């Protein structure tokens, strides 16, 4: 039989969102806060992202990924969060408690509140249905970083990087640390999706030519990658590029298995749990924060989600009633997704989302789009944004949520006329 234990709050996932959530929930006064992380060390992805620039928005200073991960874990530990590593939550029992496997045993953890902070991952080559051989030397950024920074391997010499988001440029840096040269970077979009300065700096330092509107259409070689085929999406022209390493970056998918097993409603576009501004899911007592909600934001943004969720968790522990009804926020193509994507339908209880903004993405790059948000026949908000992008979020203001009619049905985000 599995041992049973209880806690006030269980936080699942020890990355920036989970660590920060646990710290802030504990700081707000919850007695027993348990953080469950399946890795041997807490910290999540930043543990093996060695570049600088972590912590800007949450800690207001810049540090390396490993340093940032360690700092968040130390803070959680210092304030009395119970950090349990090598601890995997494998599911939920019939009473809504977490089923847990750890070296100390198989247990059931019954918590009054659960925060899912399980993060997201890059779609691997197979999920992208890239045809060709299945050779060695094909990996995601995360695997590359683990090989280079945790195992000190030299994974290849000539790399092709698929994707041109923030993470793709951090893959460039990792490649250079691992002794490899990026000979090409591809994106199906018409431009890269990172900060201009970051992109310019990386281009200068690593000289990886960026091929826009280009797909990686096949992989050749066995047992090791020998070449990839690139297709120009506008002309259909193909060409082979010799390389011995292919890094698939970005194309994020939330690690949402536990959310699905919990039966919480998923947002069809983000594929993460649908949450309201308090980061409450559709299931009472279950919250979600960070990149499990949607494709990746930077670590500090995920951490601020964690900080934000603490308030709603505290209210829940104080006996605040769970919203019985929620109003979904839906997007029409080419809008990609919005987060948060549900509204607490109780009159006057809706707070503001993390960082007082909605995050909005598009299916493909749009310049100066006019966006409108409506409910039924009435317009809640309309405005022209500088851009919308599939790989980077644009902030949308939140004041329009005050005008939502609790009985007015679905809120819709679409491109406006003109």
């Amino acid at each position, binding site marked *: 039989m599995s041992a049973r234990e209880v806690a006030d709050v269980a936080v699942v996932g020890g990355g920036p969102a989970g660590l920060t959530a646990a710290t802030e929930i504990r700081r707000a006064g919850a007695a027993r806060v348990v953080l469950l992380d399946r890795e041997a060390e807490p910290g999540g992805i930043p543990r093996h992202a060695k570049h600088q620039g972590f912590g800007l928005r949450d800690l207001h200073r810049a540090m390396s990924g490993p340093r940032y991960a360690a700092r968040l874990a130390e803070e959680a530990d210092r304030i009395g969060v119970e950090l349990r590593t090598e601890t995997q939550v494998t599911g939920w029992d019939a009473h809504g408690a977490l089923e847990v496997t*750890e070296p100390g*045993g198989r247990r059931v953890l019954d918590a009054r509140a659960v925060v899912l902070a399980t993060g997201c991952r890059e779609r691997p080559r197979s999920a992208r249905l890239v045809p060709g051989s299945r050779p060695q030397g094909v990996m995601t950024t995360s*695997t590359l970083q683990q090989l280079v920074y945790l195992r000190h391997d030299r994974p290849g010499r000539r790399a092709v990087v698929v994707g041109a988001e923030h993470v793709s440029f951090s893959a460039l840096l990792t490649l250079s640390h691992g002794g490899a040269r990026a000979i090409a970077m591809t994106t199906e979009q018409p431009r890269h999706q990172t900060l201009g300065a970051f992109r310019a700096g990386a281009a200068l330092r690593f000289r990886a030519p960026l091929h826009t509107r280009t797909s990686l259409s096949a992989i050749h070689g066995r047992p090791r990658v020998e070449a990839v085929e690139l297709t120009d999406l506008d002309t259909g022209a193909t060409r082979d590029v010799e390389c011995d390493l292919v890094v698939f970056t970005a194309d994020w998918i939330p690690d949402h298995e536990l959310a699905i097993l919990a039966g919480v409603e998923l947002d069809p576009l983000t594929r993460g749990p649908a949450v309201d501004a308090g980061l409450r899911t559709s299931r009472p007592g279950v919250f979600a924060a960070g990149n499990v909600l949607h494709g990746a934001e930077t670590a500090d943004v995920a951490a601020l989600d964690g900080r934000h969720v603490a308030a709603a968790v505290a209210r829940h522990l104080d006996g605040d009633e769970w919203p019985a009804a929620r109003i979904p926020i839906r997007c029409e193509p080419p809008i990609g997704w919005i987060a948060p994507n549900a509204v607490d339908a109780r009159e006057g209880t809706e707070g503001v989302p993390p960082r007082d903004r909605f995050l909005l993405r598009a299916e493909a790059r749009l310049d100066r789009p006019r966006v409108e948000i409506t409910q039924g026949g009435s317009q809640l908000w309309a405005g022209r944004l500088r851009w919308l992008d599939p790989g980077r979020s644009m902030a949308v203001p939140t004041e329009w949520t005050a005008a939502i009619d609790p009985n007015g049905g679905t809120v819709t985000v679409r491109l406006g006329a003109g």
Partner: protein
Amino acid sequence: MSARSPSDGSYDVAIVGAGDVGTAIARELAGFDLRIALIEAGPDVGAGTSKANTAILHTGFDAKPGSLEARLVARGHDLLLAYAEEVGIPIERTGALLVAWDSEQHGRFGAITENAEACGYGKIREVGVDELYRREPHLGPGAVGALEVPDEHIVCPFTPPLAFASQAVLAGVDLRRSEPVTALERADSDGWTVETARGTVTAGWIVNAAGLRSDEVHRMAGHEGFTVTPRRGELIVFDKLSRPLVNHVLLPVPTETTKGVLVAPTVFGNVMLGPTAVDIERKDDTSSTAEGLAYLRSLGDRLVPELAEQEVTAVYVGLRAATEHSDYQVGVDGKQRYAWAGGIRSTGLTGSMAIAEHVRDELDRAGLALRETPEALPELHMPNIGEAGPRPYAEANRIAEDPDYGRVVCFCERVTRGEIRDAARSPVPPADLDGLRRRTRALMGRCQGFFCAAHVAGLLAELSDRDVAEITEVPE
């Protein structure tokens, strides 16, 4: 290792090829007083055609009546089912539904049922549309009826050859891996000289179970009669979250040339779609194609439309050892002391144990001295890697006894450090990460190594006392 295991490279029998068929033959012959070599070109057993099949335990209902394949598949089905129970090969008794999508296909139900009966399988029954959709509520619209084949089940494709090989090795069979056979020569009337990439061994008898290369080995032994043309089969494996969408093996109505594309659950809790069937030139070309994958996806969308929304976990390509003949090519030349089992296309996993029995009997008839050993084959319990049975991460007692079973290292598939250690210490340890995957499911899941590849590689190297670079080499 048993005392009869020779160290001087001379054997009574050398089996060439350690796929489903070769390992089954090795296990079968291990019960006799023989010095046996099981010689495999690749770094692992079951790592060629055997690792990328549709993982179905066939009844043989659609085989050609009177053929060797029909007989051996029917017998092999029962043998493997019993053996699976004995040693712990994951099987789920799902049964199959053969679905007709138009009246022409429906019109062939009678012939299919008659064919099955002629093959000795009489348990097919027709299922009406209502019952079909009740049992498969996620099936796409437009089905007009189905035949139920209650004994077509799903089986772990990886454990059977590992079990056969493990039992053979425990009984003293000499498994020689990464040792492609380059030439066979009749030394004298007493046997053969086998040249391999690593040296020379001698053997009284040769058994050719070389799969895709069985025709080449056949010619090395001085025989003609069949040529293998690899037939590519691409398979798409969907995320575990799609498992509730499919309850049975969903078969199409077969055509003259192919069994067609099926949708089935896997014993690992995924849903599988495939295979395509295209004859190709090269026996090492396990590439997937844009056309093949697009074809499968479009077919999947029609068969189970909700699959379109599901994430793809993996794409596999298997090459079936098709020949110009429709039946298995199995025989013995007693004078030459040479036996062969080639042209085993799609049903080799199901047929393997019956093929082994058949080859044993043929060898016996041809004059190989078969004296049973007094001791039975060593008992074997394979680690369970199927979803239907208990797995270490969920077993409180095992974790209490050994904390390494509570140390999950491959998160998606919930593989523990204890299982990786066990694999590294097993009778047939993995040569590389691919081999570890087939033994434990590590790296087989939805993240394909995003979280754990580096760690698992390091762990396997550490636990098997080898270099990481060695174990990350991908086999030919």
